[in-house]
């Protein structure tokens, strides 16, 4: 039946089964490919993948470990870009939601920015910010600010005015309304929005790294793809997915911790 809950064991077994099927499917496709061409590197066998793992975990000729180098570079860019985007997205959303003057002032640029595909605007970022750290940070930040700001703005518009009026009768100042009522009400939805922004942020970053990077996940994937070293590319994709998953999970924990009331709402 539709949306009837299933038992916990059933859930675990089914999840494990889907992963197993994926692995078996891959092994089979790879095996078939190698029967046609034993030297194939596009769908590497498990032993080829192990060779790839050696390649990106051992020191290379320049004495660097790719995985460490790339994780560090990409992680730093992503962290800085998302942090900046989160801070400004929140501030802009709050200002738009709380101050009608700023709402009128900020609405046009935000809706315009939201419609521009970041990957298409790469060149603009290169022109304005060069090809260093600033460019990556600006690109990610500008990419996620519109969605975050709009989420906060709409969440504020959703708050019934009765709730705000009531706070005045409880002796709140304007600032207290913003901080004690609006902020706390909006916080869980904002965290949800940040979770949804992680995917796009990674897309923007990888795209930029592919074009101008000299280190980082995007750079490595592009380079190794040109050499058809798919035994490096596939693991890298898995790492990226794992990284996004981890970040998402951390934010979910943060939300449960900071907004226990919201959690109990969705249960």
């Amino acid at each position, binding site marked *: 039946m539709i949306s009837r809950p299933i038992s916990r064991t059933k859930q675990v077994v089914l999840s494990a089964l889907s992963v197993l099927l994926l692995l078996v499917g891959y092994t089979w496709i790879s095996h078939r490919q190698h029967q046609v061409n034993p030297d194939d590197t596009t769908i590497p066998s498990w032993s080829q993948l192990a060779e790839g793992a050696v390649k990106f975990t051992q020191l290379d000729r320049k004495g660097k470990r790719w995985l460490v180098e790339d994780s560090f570079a990409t992680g730093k860019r992503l962290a800085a870009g998302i942090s900046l985007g989160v801070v400004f997205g929140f501030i802009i959303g709050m200002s738009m939601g709380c101050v009608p003057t700023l709402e009128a002032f900020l609405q046009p640029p935000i809706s315009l920015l939201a419609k521009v595909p970041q990957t298409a605007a790469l060149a603009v970022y290169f022109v304005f910010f060069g090809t260093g750290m600033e460019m990556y940070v600006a690109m990610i930040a500008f990419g996620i600010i519109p969605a975050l700001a709009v989420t906060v703005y709409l969440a504020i518009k959703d708050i*019934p005015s*009765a*709730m705000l009026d009531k706070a*005045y*009768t*409880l*002796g709140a100042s304007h600032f207290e309304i913003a901080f*004690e009522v609006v902020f706390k009400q909006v916080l869980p939805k904002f965290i949800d929005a940040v979770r949804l922004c992680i995917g796009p942020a990674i897309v923007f970053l990888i795209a930029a790294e592919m074009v101008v990077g000299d280190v980082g996940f995007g750079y490595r994937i592009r380079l190794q793809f040109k050499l058809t070293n798919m035994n490096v590319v596939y693991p890298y994709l898995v790492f990226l997915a794992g990284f996004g998953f981890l970040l998402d999970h951390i934010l979910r924990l943060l939300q449960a911790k900071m907004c226990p*009331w*919201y959690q109990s709402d969705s249960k």
Partner: protein
Amino acid sequence: MMKDDEQQDFGLHCQKVSHCFGKTKVLYDLNLKVKAGQFVSLIGPSGCGKSTLLRAILGTHPPNEGQILTIQNGELISADRPGRDRGIVYQKYSLYPFLTALDNVALGLKLDQTTTLFRMFNWSGWAKKRKAFRDRAAVFLKKVGLGHAMHMYPNQMSGGMQQRVAIAQALIMEPEIILLDEPFGALDEATREELQEMLLLLYQENQDAISKSQKPPYTLIIVTHELNEAIRVGDRLIGLSQYWNWEEAGHDSPPGATVVYDKQAPIFRPDERPNYESFEDIRKEIRRYVYNPNILQSRNEHLKN
């Protein structure tokens, strides 16, 4: 400045309040004096401007003409914005979903008596105050019969419980007057009656205070469309209506609603089962003079207060 005994008695004054939205005239020359300790039931046909009047008193939408006076720290003030001297209980959205029952009730003390800077920088001072606020909130939650639900979030509570918390939230501020806007409108009959009993308990505290010649602690205006509720809870019935003889008063078109009915209501003890059939005479009178669009009497005919 007022004399002391006058101030003792003062609840709320509406003086010549008129209001219109564009060409739609809603309230006309409305005068109302509420004394401290009164439980006023505000009734009237739909569209008569009950909500407009309530919002005017609350101060979120001040009237076009006339003024509404309340008292704050012994000073008469004009109620042109919401303030801590007037509490409000709405039918919905009365509670903050991110706070437990206890913190919802304690919120007013927190907002009113401490500042954000204090809470951010004086941690030990704030911890002490917060404890005191929560203790006080617990007293009020027990008063409304929710001693067992202090740590529940609003979405874990029934509608009746939520309204109890909302009332405690308003009570804890000890405002000059509390406005209740159809507070039990979304509740079932049994829960409604329980909550009415709770209000009557508050009324009893008023009477105890009066018998000791102290100032009664609670003054209420309750808007309701349920006549039985109005009669049972209120000690004074105010009928607001657009149906009155305005032609006689020299108007060419309906000037808006005004007070057309103002009488004492019978007083009930909280544990007294109301006999709703005995309300029939009052109900009939109210339906006739307040609700019936075809019976237009002079506006002063049924003001007995």
